[in-house]
């Protein structure tokens, strides 16, 4: 489903060259739930950006659902995101001027898909937000906003979902409910989930945990939820 080969990312600032990601390779199978953990500055978010095609690597390649992202321009990568990728952010990133329902409709409307309103309404209902569909983000609690974000992430039936610290701005109980939701969607829809988090308890619920330090993967272990077969999967 998702393959990273010898990924590296450098930033140059004047005469200084800063490498934030070095030689990262791994493979995530379709339907798997992968957590990426590590301290601040270890390169988690940079890796996520490269895997999702939000940025381009300095070296190496990313193959998403059989498509090599390096050969595509920004707009072509955007189209792939629109078709195959879903996102969940730590700060929810709902568009403040749109209602909950309209936020969920966005990925479908960008592609001009019919039935966007119905699908959005269904997803919000599954998230337990039937009564909040016409509320603006500022009228919702943090947990509700993140549930809207999850509904939006699944609106286009993505093959893969990237979640960047999805519980970082939520209290423990709300965070736990969000993770349960992600897990059930992963199981029911067969969506591959790539989760970036600080939270080791949360990471432990994944099939597989990649630990990062100084821009490299230093550990690749099976999570508590890992099925026996997935643990020994080759990288």
């Amino acid at each position, binding site marked *: 489903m998702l393959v990273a080969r010898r990924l590296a990312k450098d930033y140059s600032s004047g005469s200084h060259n800063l490498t934030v990601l070095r030689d990262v390779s791994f493979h995530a199978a379709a339907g798997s739930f992968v957590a990426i953990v590590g301290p601040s500055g270890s390169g988690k978010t940079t890796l996520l950006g490269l895997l999702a095609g939000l940025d381009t690597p300095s070296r190496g390649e990313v193959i998403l659902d059989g498509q090599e992202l390096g050969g595509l321009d920004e707009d072509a990568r*955007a189209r792939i*995101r629109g078709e195959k990728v879903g*996102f969940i952010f730590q700060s929810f*990133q709902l568009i*403040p001027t749109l209602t909950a329902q309209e936020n969920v409709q966005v990925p479908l409307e960008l592609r*001009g898909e019919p039935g966007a309103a119905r699908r959005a309404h269904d997803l919000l209902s599954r998230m337990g937000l039937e009564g909040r569909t016409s509320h*603006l983000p500022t009228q919702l609690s943090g947990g509700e906003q993140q549930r809207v974000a999850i509904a939006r992430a699944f609106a286009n039936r993505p093959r893969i979902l990237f979640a960047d610290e999805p519980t970082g701005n939520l209290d423990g109980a709300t965070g736990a409910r969000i993770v349960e939701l992600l897990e059930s969607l992963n199981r029911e829809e067969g969506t591959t989930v790539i989760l970036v988090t600080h939270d080791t308890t949360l990471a432990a619920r994944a099939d597989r945990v990649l630990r990062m330090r100084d821009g490299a993967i230093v550990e690749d272990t099976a999570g508590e939820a890992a099925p026996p077969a997935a643990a020994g999967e080759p990288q």
Partner: protein
Amino acid sequence: MNLRQVTSLARLAWRESRTARRRLLLYMSSIALGVAALVAIDSFAANVNRSIRDQSLALLGGDLTFGARQAFPERAIAILDSLEDNGAGVAYVTTFASMALAPQHERTRLAQVRAVGEGYPFYGEVITRPAGQWTRLHDGHYVMADPSLLISLGASVGDTLRIGFTDFVILAELEQVPGDPGVAAAIGPRVFVAERWLEEMGLLGFGSRAEFEAVVRLPDGVNADQFIEPFRAELREQRVRLNTVAENESEMTESIDELADFLGIVGLIALLLGGVGVASGVSAFVARKMDAVAVLRCLGATSGQVLAIYSAQAALMGLAGAAAGAALGIGIQLMLPGMVSDFLPVDVKVRVEPLVVLTGLGIGVWVALVFALRPLLSLRNVSPLQALRRDADPAVLRGRWRDPARLSVDLLLVGSVVFLAMQRADTWQQGAGFAVGIAVVLLALWVSASLLSRLARSIVSAGWPYVVRQGMANLYRPANQTRAVVVALGFGAFLVSTLYLTQSNLLARFEVLAESARGNLVFFDVQDDQVDGIATIVRDTGEEVVEQIPIVNMRVARINGWTMQQMTDTTNPDGVLRANWALRREYRSTFRSEMVATESLLYGRWFSDSDNGLPEVSMEREVSEDLGAQLGDTITWDVQGVEIPTLLTSIREVEWARFEPNFFAVFEPHAISDAPKQWVILAAVSSDDRLALLQRDAVDRFPNVSSIDLSLIRRTIATIVNKVTMAVRFLALFSLAMGIPVLFSAVAASRRARVREGVLLKTLGATRRQIRSILLAEYVLLGLLAALAGMVLSFGGAWALLTFVFNQSFKAAIGPALAIAGTMVLVTVVIGLLGARDVFRETPMAALRGD
């Protein structure tokens, strides 16, 4: 993109604009005043032109008119007679100035007497009060006069009015005479009498100034222009002017178009100012939208889709702004005829002009969109990665100058400005001049801003107070808005100040008119043998005769031996370009040995006693240029049949706009003192009562002598000037009003960054006062630089406009320009601080949360 995608995007654009609509509409409203100006000005011009076309026959009174400054020559009479024999209607109109006296009240006033033949006017209607009296004019010794005359004489309908040696009964007041602007009645009130009393009045004696006109109604089916063509050259030779309805119409619409041209420049300025406002406002809007755009990009929106969403929002709001402007323009258009009707020769029928309104709307939306596109394009640079980062980096909004899309938009912008300038200007050279001028100003502002940024960086010293250092640092730090804000503010200041300076210079011409002269009562048409009599009447009343000025009528016969025929020949044998008007006109000249206060010597020397063999003459600068006459030339004059050669020994500059008798040609006394002449006598009279008494006594003894009360004229002109001033003040206020939305937009562009920094500084312990001082330092510097640069540039702009468009000299009004600049600085600071009030409202927690 298929239709479904387009409608989906349109829906998304509409929803996404939800909370930003008001703000975006505010930015886009900058365009509203520009559209209002365009719609009002163009609709008004279209209304007036349409009214002229509709009323063209009535305006001329016939199909064709013959006009002359002296009695018609035989050839003209013969043509008119043959016309009458062939079924055409001919009515003669003789117009001259004379004193009108109301014997009951013993009051007099100078009036414009029109002796008209039966049938006049053939088209249109003279409206009288009581109504329907016009047809009775020829029934007896009747007159009809303007109400202003009757008021000043204390007379009313039914009273007697004496003109010359004849008494008439006032039959009615004139309400409306086709073809005359209302203001004509205020300057010289009209009295209509039947033509057959002309001789009885006994006023048209030697040297009397009168206009002779014959109004002709051609038989049906005869085309006036075709009919008159064979006679045109011959009649012109005999100084008979011909005017057909079509010519009259085009002359009138031409002058209205000239007025519209000036107002058109105001419209263009308003529109460009609006464009600048839109550009800076949309820059601020774009900065706010970075997060939303990053999310959209994450969710799969292409850069084209993002651009489409926000361009659609801008276009829609631009349309709303332009529509509001068009509605305002229609409102102003309804008001305009009321404000200027006195100056127009037609009764303006106000009508909404759909084509003008649509054009205004179209241009408004186009300008809004083109100016908005440049900042909107930078939204394409927003990376989806931004959604993962907590801080949006405004630096990404800076475009790369080699970006083809950006270059295309720049080209479109320049093209639009050039096109609009060309469309509004009179000639393509003027249009190109406007466009180049605007480019130079923008470049100068950009360079000034860059210099300020550099200067701020190099002069800031560690020893300065922190708040000043911080305020100045805002001018050069990364992602600073110095250039954008200075260009927007400076351009606003430049345009407003240019408009003001142009208006005040144009208006100054009127104000000089109202200046006082040495005397307040003028007698004219005084014959040689009446001079002593008039002077005695004045002195016997205990008043002073200020000046007695002789006037001799003459024409140019030859210059350096070249005859009139040779000089007006198209082959131009002597190679000197001469203006026809100057060669052919009748000169009313004087002789004296001294110069007067309104004259100054430009070239040559004033009359000397030395004997040059020829008498000396001094000419006014402009007329000497138009005659192609230079110092040392011999000008031969035809003084009522006698040729008098003279030597041109000096050229004078004359200040015309004063109530003083001034002359194109002044002779040394012995040259023409024996020629037949008339006199103008200027008297200084101490009271209004005595003035009335003097006028009555003079008209009693010398009915042919006219007198004019200058204070009355001054009052009349003051009324007109007040009206013009009101219209101009309205324009000035309008242009200042245009500046405010631009200021708002310009300051809004950097507002967000300032609020964020301010809140962070508060978190770090800065007091409100310190933050306010930092902002104050920044906005004062920005405002000062922009306003002063704009002001200096506006001197150049106004000079260029006055010199090349209005052919007038420019006088820099530094005081008012500084006042405008000061106001701009003040408003900048106020708007800047108002915009930053969120800094004081937000708690430091907001910064900690990263909201």
